[in-house]
């Protein structure tokens, strides 16, 4: 835990130290150690069931851990703390889900503006304006008054990204944001993510889109059976994967 002392100006946006997590007897995360620097784009890849979702969900404490610690901008997010303190920390970590999880009872613009109003206390007028700007940025200004049920999957995921951005988080987490999409909609979501990366957003993305990983990522974490087996820049990872299981994973992907 000594590695997690609070440093307000920590160079790392996220630092994961000795994290272990089990579901009952089954150990999902085995002694994970990794860091994400400010402005860095990290892609997590690995076979299905290897613990990618579990890992990324521990970063904003949607999942608890059994031991170790995770610091976000120098603050230990798994330390004992009051609910309001945790909510404040969480509101500064954007999260995009595989299944979008838009709020179906709210219109698109309400989806984006609701949390700034209710959580941050932004005035409704300001939140609405901001939401419209963000929707414009993800190319959905004309859908502001639609309901999620009226949008395609790709459009819903772009709204979900805008909704997360509305809280102005310094860090964005993505858990397979394109896996639930029809192939023709993958590109529109990835291009929003690319533009975010180009603007310097710190991003931690679980994705199987190896093209995105190659073009955008600064670093790849390869995870298998709950362990990070390799971390490398994409050019090294794709050309010379060192770990045999990473080699097998990449070979399987190419088929």
């Amino acid at each position, binding site marked *: 835990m000594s590695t997690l002392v609070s440093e307000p100006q920590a160079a790392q946006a996220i630092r994961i130290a000795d994290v272990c997590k089990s579901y009952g007897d089954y150990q999902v995360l085995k002694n994970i150690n990794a860091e994400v620097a400010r402005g860095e784009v990290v892609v997590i890849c690995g076979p299905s069931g290897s613990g990618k979702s579990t890992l990324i969900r521990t970063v*904003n404490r*949607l999942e*608890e851990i059994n031991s170790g610690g995770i610091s976000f901008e120098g603050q230990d997010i798994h330390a004992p703390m*009051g*609910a*309001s303190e*945790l*909510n*404040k920390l*969480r*509101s*500064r*970590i*954007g*999260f995009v*889900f595989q*299944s979008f*999880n*838009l*709020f*179906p*009872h709210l219109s698109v613009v309400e989806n984006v503006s*609701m*949390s700034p109003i*209710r*959580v*941050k206390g932004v005035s409704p007028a300001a939140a609405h304006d901001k939401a419209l700007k963000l929707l414009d940025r993800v190319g959905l200004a004309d859908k502001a008054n639609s*309901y999620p*049920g*009226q949008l395609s999957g790709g459009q819903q995921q772009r709204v979900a990204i805008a*909704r*997360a951005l509305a*809280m102005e988080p310094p860090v964005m987490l993505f858990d397979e944001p394109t896996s639930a999409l029809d192939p023709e909609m993958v590109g529109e979501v990835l291009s929003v993510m690319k533009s975010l990366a180009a603007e310097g957003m710190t991003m931690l993305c679980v994705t199987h889109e190896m093209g995105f990983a190659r073009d955008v990522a600064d670093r790849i974490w390869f995870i298998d059976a709950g362990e990070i087996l390799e971390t490398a820049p994409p050019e090294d990872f794709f050309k010379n994967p060192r770990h045999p299981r990473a080699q097998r994973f990449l070979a399987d992907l190419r088929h």
Partner: protein
Amino acid sequence: MIQDFITIIQDYWLLLLIGQYPNGPLGGLANTLILSALAIAFAFPVSILMALARLSKWWFLRWPMTALVYVTRGVPLLMLILWCYFVIPLWTGADVPSFLIMLVTLVIYQGAFLSEVVRAGIVSLGQGQMDAARALGHGYMGAMRFVILPQALYNMIPSMISTFVSTIKDTTLGYVINVPDLTFAASQVNNQLLTQPFQVFLILALVYYILCWSLTYVANSVERRIARRRAGPRNARLPAEAAPLKTITEQL
């Protein structure tokens, strides 16, 4: 035969409408409507609080409320009414009007039933909505208020309507503790006529039928209006394979 109905209504419509009022307490249909409306108006928020208590991480909220719901649902309403009728004045030492006793009993009874509906509605929404709300920084209660309950309650409209309809029907049981409602008035009419119970109680049944049917009609059209606004078909509401929402571990 038809003439009998017309005569009964002509002679007794005021009694059936407002009871002995203004010479006695307000009764008849007016009292039935007031009792039903108040019972529904209180049972609804009470049921939400009961559901949240049953889903609470705190045992001292969860256990007593679970016991109350089980007992209430396992006991005939008539027993509960009689029990409250004898026990509430004993406890309070006051002369509690039978109308109030009936109201309290109905609120507890229907609240317990409705709370099960609300609880199922919350849990069946799935974990994803709670996750999304928490990830945006909403607290448990904020997530409930702005994200979970608006959807859960909307999904539960059909079950809620049937509970509200049975609330209206259950007000008739106030008869046994002399609540001066429509049933009470009809029975007074019957006692005066003596020879036409079929006609009197058929009128009574018709009035209750119209009441319950109008409530169902209004509620259904409200539901349709919301559905049209969201342009989502009913069966698209629930995600197909949603994992049940974790309510206890979400409350830090």
